């Protein structure tokens, strides 16, 4: 057993201690808040939280969050360099006052915060790593009568704040393309109305926005074609992003490995999906196509993650996780021990970003 204690007078300067701690998982940092008052304030300092977040984001170690509709949440470690075929789901136990509500769906994540919502579009923000959660107030700006919504969570670097967007619209059968858009900012804990979207969102109900390069993205219609619509979170203006040349409708839009991705079911072979990845944001020529071949035709599949070796991970029909290897052209189920039988799924990175503590 090597002697672990350094010689009595070796102490490290604060910046080195901070560097070392920024490499630790959140669970260790939560324990080390008990080391001393100065360690506790270092770990809660916004600068430290940002350094830790950047390291966590760069490591590309994503985690899966699984929810089982009763607000029972589970976390699964994913090694995104190459997915393993066996994993373990850890049940997330929250303190009673931090228990998440609104868990019918997982509506995206940003910097370790996960957006969750219920069927009435009530939202909550959860940090699964620190076991904190906050229920958002209801948006007073929704279209009258029964409505549907597109939504999303992102970060506005111009004001260093997290924003949730709600675009409410009527069911497509009403043939009204009206919508009403509101933005919630975490620091003010309130909703604000912004300009309406000039696009028709009703053709793709209930979309979770893909956050990349400071903007949330959804698929909507410009009256003739499906377009990728972006809402910049700093200027709060809608614009479009060039789509790949599809000649057919987009089934799903999401962000994987930091890139905007479009998934299309092949018309001539419904067992196959075309996955288009926009390798360089905003550059039309950078859309790159991968073909995902499935053994079965699934009713519902949601892309969750993309490994560096080209494996796509999908939530298939809400009860299994399937890995598709685009090079080997084979699919495998990802076995997760201890997971719920039916689940909603999303991905997040570990961070100390707090949905509840807004001032330091």
């Amino acid at each position, binding site marked *: 057993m090597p*002697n672990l204690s350094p010689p009595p007078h070796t*102490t*490290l300067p604060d910046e080195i*201690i901070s560097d070392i701690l920024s*490499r630790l998982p959140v669970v260790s940092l939560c324990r080390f808040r008990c080391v*001393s008052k100065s360690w506790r304030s270092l770990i809660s300092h916004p600068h430290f939280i940002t350094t830790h977040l950047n390291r966590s984001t760069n490591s590309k170690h994503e985690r899966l969050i699984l929810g089982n509709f009763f607000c029972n949440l589970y976390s699964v470690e994913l090694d995104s360099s190459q997915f393993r075929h066996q994993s373990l789901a850890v049940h997330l136990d929250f303190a009673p006052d931090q228990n998440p509500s609104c868990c019918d769906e997982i509506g995206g994540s940003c910097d370790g915060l996960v957006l969750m919502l219920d069927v009435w579009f009530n939202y909550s923000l959860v940090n699964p790593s620190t076991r904190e959660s906050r229920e958002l107030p209801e948006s007073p700006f929704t279209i009258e009568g029964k409505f549907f919504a597109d939504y999303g969570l992102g970060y506005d670097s111009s004001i260093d704040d997290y924003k949730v967007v709600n675009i409410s619209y009527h069911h497509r059968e009403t043939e009204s393309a009206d919508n009403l858009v509101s933005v919630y900012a975490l620091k003010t804990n309130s909703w604000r109305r912004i300009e309406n979207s000039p696009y028709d969102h009703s053709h793709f109900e209930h979309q979770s926005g893909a956050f990349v390069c400071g903007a949330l993205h959804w698929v909507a219609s410009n009256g003739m074609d499906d377009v990728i619509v972006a809402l910049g979170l700093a200027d709060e203006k809608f614009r479009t992003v060039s789509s790949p040349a599809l000649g057919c409708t987009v089934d799903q839009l999401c962000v994987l490995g930091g890139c905007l991705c479009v998934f299309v079911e092949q018309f001539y072979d419904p067992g196959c999906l075309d996955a288009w990845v926009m390798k360089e944001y905003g550059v039309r020529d950078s859309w790159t196509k991968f073909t995902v071949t499935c053994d079965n035709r699934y009713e519902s599949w949601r892309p969750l993650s993309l490994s560096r070796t080209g494996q796509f991970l999908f939530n298939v029909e809400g009860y299994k996780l399937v890995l598709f290897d685009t090079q080997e052209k084979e699919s495998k189920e990802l076995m997760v021990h201890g997971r719920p039988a039916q689940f909603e799924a999303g991905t997040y990175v570990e961070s100390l970003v707090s949905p509840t503590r807004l001032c330091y």
Partner: protein
Amino acid sequence: MASSIENNNEKLTLKSSDGEEFLVEKHVALQSTLLQNMLDSDCSSADVIPLPKIDARTLALVLGYCKKHADASSSKQGELNSFDSEFLKDMDMGALFNLVLAANFMEIKGLLDIAAQKIADTIKDKPHQEVREIFHVENDYTPEEEAAVREENRWAFEGFP
């Protein structure tokens, strides 16, 4: 910079805090930004450069790291990675602390990185009481305060004393 490449075979002398002198090839010394800046600012290589904060044992380790990385600059990254992990493998906490301090002082980013990561990996699963001792941190909490912070983070203490 140009002169240092031309005079690749030149050597310089480093002196540790406990008085031991190390003759180092210039291209090896250039792994350290501190030494690089000194050489760039016309500091004569005939002089002995004192490193008053670094003892001989630590300096020997640092120079071993620098030599491997200077010589291997064109070789494969994988080989360097396995050298790095082997290099730190059985090092105790005291040696790691000295190494991280030396890398910080001499501005050797790669070494600072791996040593800090090794310390982080070693403490990550330790109880906070032990971490307090390793870092010589004075516990300024009253027992009540510490219990309250612990209660706030109760989930993180599962399986810990």
